């Protein structure tokens, strides 16, 4: 099966600022994909391009089998989009708004009421469906925006930071809802919160400063970076001798030594996935250096992400 979303060398300039550069990825159908990156990474820019709101400066993209640039209108009939700020018309009532959006998206007259009832059930709108949107709380507005994105039963859903500004209960409910959407739709959600993506997505694409840095299943990505875990050792020893002895061990990539209240704190980075705990403890025993700590610092996806955010 062809990919549901296919992006090639997508680049977007705002004036002279390059918001995304040479972004390429492909996403198979029927998944919940997390688009993860710090603020300003270019997530919203990418989603806006994929939804046909704004054109890219260069590159190409296909969504649901349509070219985003040349077949924009056909493509837009097959997507749902929830922008970051959940823009709605405050003067309209929820039901009236959904009816307007359904008509605009070409849902046939006979289907409209049925679709409204369906999204009403999916997004728990019942308690406020007849109220003006201007009176709703942030969480309710978010559900209305989601209901709008779903109203045409689209193949692909783009949700830009769908849980931003919600309280913890609402976040859990929204995540649950998004998870359930993955069964019928391909969902792309953006987020700057790692745990959110880990909790809801089958696949993660990490972007930073407009570049794609990694793509994969959250577990795989975690394992990939866990291989780079380093060892922390605290001993009392002559600094130069310690540094030389550790660096001479097999499979050591890098050694850093710091003085810390009379003890030397050593950070040992292994080459690839080498486990250096045994060689290192043997070395220290041989030398007879007093040891007060030896532990492995398992790099999590979180650390990896924090590093990326900090600029590597």
């Amino acid at each position: 099966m062809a990919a549901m979303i296919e992006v090639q060398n997508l680049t977007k300039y705002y004036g002279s600022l390059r918001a995304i550069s040479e972004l390429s990825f492909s996403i198979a159908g029927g998944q919940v994909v997390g688009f993860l990156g710090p603020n300003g990474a270019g997530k919203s820019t990418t989603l806006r391009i994929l939804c046909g709101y704004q054109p890219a400066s260069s590159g190409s993209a296909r969504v649901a089998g349509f070219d985003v640039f040349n077949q924009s209108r056909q493509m837009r009939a097959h997507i749902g989009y929830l922008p970051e700020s959940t823009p709605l018309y405050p003067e309209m009532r929820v039901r009236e708004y959904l009816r307007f959006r359904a008509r605009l998206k070409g849902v046939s007259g006979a289907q409209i009421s049925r679709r409204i009832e369906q999204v009403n059930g999916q997004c728990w709108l019942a308690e406020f469906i007849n109220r003006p949107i201007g009176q709703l709380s942030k969480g309710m507005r978010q559900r209305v925006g989601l209901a709008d994105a779903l109203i045409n039963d689209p193949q692909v859903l783009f949700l830009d930071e769908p849980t931003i500004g919600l309280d913890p209960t609402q976040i859990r409910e929204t995540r649950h809802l998004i998870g359930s959407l993955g069964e019928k739709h391909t969902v792309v959600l953006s987020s700057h919160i790692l745990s959110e993506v880990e909790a809801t997505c089958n696949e993660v694409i990490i972007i930073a400063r407009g570049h794609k840095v990694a793509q994969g299943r959250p577990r795989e990505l975690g394992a990939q970076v866990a291989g780079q875990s380093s060892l922390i050792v605290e001993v009392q020893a002559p600094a130069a001798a310690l540094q030389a002895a550790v660096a001479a061990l097999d499979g050591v990539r890098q050694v850093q030594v710091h003085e810390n209240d009379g003890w030397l704190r050593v950070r040992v980075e292994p080459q690839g996935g080498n486990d250096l705990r045994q060689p290192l403890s043997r070395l220290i025993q041989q030398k007879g250096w007093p040891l007060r700590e030896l532990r492995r610092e398992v790099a999590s996806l979180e650390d990896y992400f924090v590093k990326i955010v900090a600029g590597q």
Partner: protein
Amino acid sequence: MGGAWTITRKELLGYFCSPIGYVVLVIFLGLNGYLFGMTNLEPGMEASLRPLFGRFMPLVLLFIMPMLTMRLLSEEFRSGTIETLMTAPINDAAVIAGKFLGALLYYMVLLATTLFYLIPLVRHGTPDWGGVVAGYLGLVLVGALYIAAGLLFSACTSNQIIAVICSFVFLALLAVITDWIAMNVEGTPRFLLQYISVGYQYGDFVRGAISLSSVAYFLTGTFFLLFVSVKVLESRRWR
């Protein structure tokens, strides 16, 4: 043009539910009622709607039409709803057409309220029906042109105040100032200025005549402004 009518309906309903719709309605009714009462309800006057269709109408509309059009697109840009609007399967021309028709229909509802003024005329005299038809046609054409201009400025900015001021200045130039300058110059400049002046082109309708060249002027102007609005809307997304 799929979707245009959906937008038209939303905008039209919006005027009936919004303060600005009522403000405009009240100003319109008040001014017309006042002027109609001043000039017509006296014995011996001619039985026509001439005060309503008179030369000052483009001036009255100059003040109220920008208020009707200012929020049409500015508000979509300000609130961000432009993103959901333009990612629906609808093209830019349909958005402009839908908004334009929504405002035009509301304006025609305003105009329809003046049909009541015909009642005393019919009861106490014989109205000049040709003049009535020409007058209403003229007003619809002037309104359409003004709405198209207001829509254009609304597409240019996310600030309603800027939109209303720009529309007002532009329409003042088109409706009054060109006419006024034209009276003070001679020859070709005068002819050209008169040609682009709403006040001048509207003159025939005031006299109860329908001139094809004036109709063509208003239609061309309206379509041209709508066309530019579509281009502006397109270009705003490119940035």
